[in-house]
Each structure stands twice: as C-alpha cells, then as structure tokens.
C-alpha cells in the first residue's frame, strides 16, 4: 500500500489498533494450535495464520452496529467485536463460558449483541443470511451494512450465487468478500474454477468487484471502506476478492503436503504482520520498542484467556436438551 495514501486515509491510532489486533489474532491462534498439539483441544482447529489482515481490516472498517457474517478464518473479526480471549479459548475447550456454551466448537461462534452471526460449516450458507440481514436494514430504512464472506471454494456453491444475485437485484447494503487463500482443503484453484480471478464472478451479477492484497491490512481496510460507503449510499453490494495464501493445513491435523513448498516460502515474505510493521515504521507510527510492547501485551491477554478457559466449568450432560427451541424473540436492540 502506498505510504502517502495510508498517511492521508488512515488515522495513526486506527492503524496501530489494527496492528495490535493482527498480533493478538496470531498469538491467540498460535496458542490454540499449541493446545491442540498437546491434545487439550478435542475438535478441529482452523486458523487464519498468514491471513489475519483480512478480518482485522474489514472489521476495523465497519461501524459497531453493522453486522458480520464471517468466514471460518476470521478470528480478528471476533476479537474486534469484543469476544475476549477467555471466551474464545473456552469455546475451543468446550466450556460453558464459551459463546455457544459448549453447543458448538472452535470458530463457530456468534453473538447478536456483538453483531456477529454464527459461522455455518457449509461454506457460503452464511451469504444468503448476510443478504437477508441487509434486506432487514433496507426494509427498515436503516443506514447499516453487512459484511459476509466465504473462501475460494465456497464461491462454487449455489448459495454464493443465489445470495449475490438476490442482493444485486434488490441493491442490498451488503459487502460480499472472498478469502482467496488458493486452496479449498486440498483442492487448488485450478480445479475449483475456470477463471483467473474469483472477482470475475461478480460481473455475472452486475456487481462491482475489486481485487485486494489480502495480506496488507491497510489495503483491506480501505477497500472495505469504499465498499461500505457504496452500500450505505444505497448503491448496492460489492464483491471483494482478498488474495492471500493459506499458510497452514486446512485444519491443524492436515500437514498440507499438497501445497508446493516454494509457494509457501514466497508468501512467507508477504506475511501480514511483517507488512504492517514495515508500514508503521515508514509512517513513523511504530518501532521495535512499540512492537515489543504489543508482543508482551498480547501474550498477557492470551495467557489470561487460557487461565480463564481452563478454570471454567464444562457444561453438564443434561444441558444437551437446552435451547432446541426459542421461548421468546431476540430481545436486545436489533
């Protein structure tokens, strides 16, 4: 990202805040991976390692009452919306203090009070929901927007198509994004689609699209801002393709030997945290001392989270029966 543009368009404290969230995301997920390797996490672990800039960038661009329908590698979005490291770790450990009280695992968290829809494993299922939340805003005449995302693989599903088409027809205030990390589990892009860029799909819906460097948090933030302005102005949806690379396996059990080593080496040089540090230095917004302070801060926060999660109770067996049906409507301000 051009330094002069960033200096003009992004406030110093906002950029520093994004850097902090990049680091918190990395530290938290590295800790989760370590816990997984120690056998302390029972389910799967899907990280955003090397892709943290996407969720951190777009979630920072949104207002507090906007809605996020996340992809499963969007940990930064949860942190920015106020999910604590303790709650998140409790979720991974299946504890009652996690956002789903043990009903669902890992990144399948949601909380209406914090404006985040629960992720559904069936990729792209959340996109019609994102369109529907945007429809609610349009019907009520509210100036709110929705950010809904999936991966490169998810864009092959019918729900991606149906959501994009419906949102475009009705000019809904929604921004669709794709975390194009080049692999859907083991399937490379060339077996996923016959087009060079995922963003090419947007044309079919009469929707503008943009290719964005997904490893550059400033670029993600500014592209998200442009799309959000467009959505709020009533000009309809935008599709953002964030180009990135999945640096770990699909989940932590997967060594991902199908990914060429050279490709990983190449992308390692484009690490989003390295990029952000370079930018902060060039702008005079940060230096090694301030980066070290962030290192210590996120470490404290992650360790406090581990302690909270480990001391939290597991749910009791009979709680399995709770919550199949709602007894009342969602009561908080919507």
């Amino acid at each position, binding site marked *: 990202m051009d330094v002069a543009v960033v200096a003009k368009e992004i406030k110093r404290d906002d950029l520093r805040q994004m850097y902090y969230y990049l680091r918190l995301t990395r530290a938290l997920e590295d800790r989760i991976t370590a816990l997984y390797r120690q056998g302390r996490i029972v389910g799967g672990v899907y990280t955003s390692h090397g892709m943290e800039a996407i969720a951190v960038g777009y979630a920072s661009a949104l207002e507090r009452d906007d*809605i996020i*329908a996340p992809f499963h590698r969007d940990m930064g979005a949860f942190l920015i919306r106020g999910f604590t490291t303790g709650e998140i770790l409790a979720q991974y450990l299946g504890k009652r203090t996690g*956002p*789903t009280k043990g*009903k*669902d695992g890992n990144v*399948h*968290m*949601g*909380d*209406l009070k914090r404006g985040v*829809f*629960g992720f*559904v494993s*069936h990729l792209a*299922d959340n*996109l*019609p*929901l*994102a*369109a*529907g*939340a*945007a*429809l*609610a*805003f*349009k*019907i*009520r005449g509210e100036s709110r927007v*929705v950010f809904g995302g999936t991966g490169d693989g998810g864009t092959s599903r*019918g*729900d991606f*198509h*149906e*959501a994009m*088409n*419906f949102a475009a*027809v*009705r000019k809904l205030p929604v921004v669709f994004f794709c975390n194009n990390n080049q692999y859907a589990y083991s399937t490379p892009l060339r077996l996923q689609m016959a087009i060079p860029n995922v963003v090419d799909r947007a044309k079919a819906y009469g929707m503008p699209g943009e290719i964005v460097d997904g490893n550059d948090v400033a670029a993600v933030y500014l592209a998200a801002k442009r799309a959000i302005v467009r959505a709020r102005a009533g000009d309809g949806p935008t599709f953002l393709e964030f180009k990135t690379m999945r640096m770990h396996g699909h989940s932590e059990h997967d060594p991902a030997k199908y990914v060429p080593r050279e490709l990983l080496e190449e992308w390692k040089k484009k690490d989003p945290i390295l990029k952000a540090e370079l930018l902060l230095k060039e702008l005079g917004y940060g230096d090694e001392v301030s980066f070290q302070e962030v290192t210590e801060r996120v470490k404290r926060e992650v360790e406090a989270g581990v302690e909270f999660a480990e001391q939290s109770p597991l749910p009791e067996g009979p709680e399995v029966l709770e*919550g*199949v*049906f*709602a*007894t*009342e*409507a*969602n009561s908080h301000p*919507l």
Partner: protein
Amino acid sequence: MSSTTAEREVSYLEAISQALDEEMAHDERVFLMGEDIGMYGGAFKITEGFLKKYGEWRVLDTPLSESGFVGAAIGAAIMGLRPVVEMQFADFISCAFDQITEVAAKNHYRWGAAVPMVIRAPFGGGVHGGPFHSECPEGWFFHSPGLKLVAPSTPYDAKGLLKAAIRDPNPVIYFEHKFLYRRIKSSLPKEDFVVPLGKADVKRVGNDISVITYGAMVHLALEAAQTLANEGIDLEVVDLRTLMPLDKEAIYSSVRKTSKAILLHEDNKTGGIGAEIAALVAEDCFDCLDGPIIRIAPPDTPVPFSTPLEESFLPKTSDIVTAARKLAAY
C-alpha cells in the same frame, strides 16, 4: 370450534390469505417473500392484492432461488423481522433443505439467536400434479430438531395456526394442503384468534378406534367414520394439526380410551410420521392396546401423475373402512 359471530363461509385458501393480511396489518415486522407472489398474486392467488396494499418491500417477488430466499429470510428473522416465505409447491422445498435443516433449525441451539420465520409449503396430492407438484415432504423435516411443523385441515385451523406460526419465535414450516384450498369452507369468528402450536384436536369423538391423522386425510377419516357408524363401529378422529412438537398427550388419551389405533397419512409409509407414532404408542400405551397398530399410507413410490395411478397411490376411504373392520374384530 366455537364461532360466536356468523360470517360468510370462508375457504381454506381464503383463511390463509386472511391470516397473512391480518398479521401484516397488525405487525409491521411481517413481510412476504417468494416466487410470483407479488405482481401475479401467487400461483394459487393467496397473496392477490398484497403487493398493492403493502408495497414491494413487504411483498417481495424473488428470483428463482429457494435456498437463497430462505437463507435471506433467516438473516432478516435474526435481525428482528418476521418473514413468511412461500414455496410455490412444497416439492421445491428440497432446494432449500440445507438452509432449513442446517441453518434455521440449529441456529438457536448453537448460538442463541432465535429465527422467527414461517415457510408456507403447499403440499399433497389428488390434484394430478405428478411427482414434482404433489409431494408430502414433512417427514424430512420431522426428523430435524429445531423446526416446528404444522398441517391444518380446516379453514379455522388454517387461519389460527398460521397466525400462531407467524407469532412464534421459531422456524415453522406450514404445510397447507392444495386439495383443500377451494374444497373446504366454513364460517370463521370475526375477532382475532390463534390455534396454539402443539395442540391436536379431536375432530370426531368416538369410542371404538382412534384414527390419528392430519391434513387432507382428516376428511377421509371423517367420511369413513360415517360409513362405519352404520355398522356400529365408532371412530374417533384425532387431527394432529401440529406435527412437531407432537401432542403426545392427545394421542395417548385417545388410544387409552379406544385401545385401538389407525395411523393415516398421505406421506409414503416407510419412515413416515405414522411410524413414529406407532413406536410411541407401543412404548407408552402397550398395556391398553387390544389389537395391532395399523398404518394406512401410500406405497414407497414417487407420487404418480396419471389418474388410475394416483388413485391407487393415495389412501382411500375404503382402506380405512377395511382396516377398522379388521380392528373391530379384536
């Protein structure tokens, strides 16, 4: 049904239309989505005039995309609206199966956000619709925890259950029987009323055999009851009205009285709702049974098109009469 104010007779179809209109008028959160429901007024004309009355943001003609608009309804419901979506035919609900069973059904359980929405599904045969316009897909959803399912048999229940479904905080699939649309009429109370979800209704009180059924089959059972009355066999007809949650108490109390049960439905036999009720009765009412539990349901085939084939497929009054005579001998 207690009707205090005599009104002109209302068809089953008009009752559905009235329920939608009244709920939209009194609650601005209620809106409709579906294919051809706006300008065209719906394939069965249930929403005729609604677009003009409520405008294009409360009566949305959608692209041909059941999964997409059901998903959109879920998103809008989570945000506090009360969407009512129309499947043009219940058969097309298969396109939205994933959104209904994986997203809507599990949402509250997973992360606590209620999904107050209704999916209207015109179902059932007897209208020469063939394999794609006659299905009874309730069995698929009966097995998916988190969904409520209703299937009215009368205009009163059609109106009252739809109002209750719209006011409920959960996803409700409302199975409306196409065969009954213009064939069944009755007068309805003038004042607002609901039929609570989860409550069965005894449509005919009898002492000898319980026929437990729902939808269009209720009328078949009532016809059979008339024939059998001449032979001294007294049928009790239990109309489930709500399929999920099932009114087990109503089923048990009828079977405990008659000691004999016929389970009648239009969905095919294997793995149908009748199978579940048979198991429940066997588990919980075994001591009071004086004869075998009998299921009457279509064979395990798609719903056929040609008249003799469809007639052979659908349960008939004579099937109930034959089964009742057999049971009466125990």
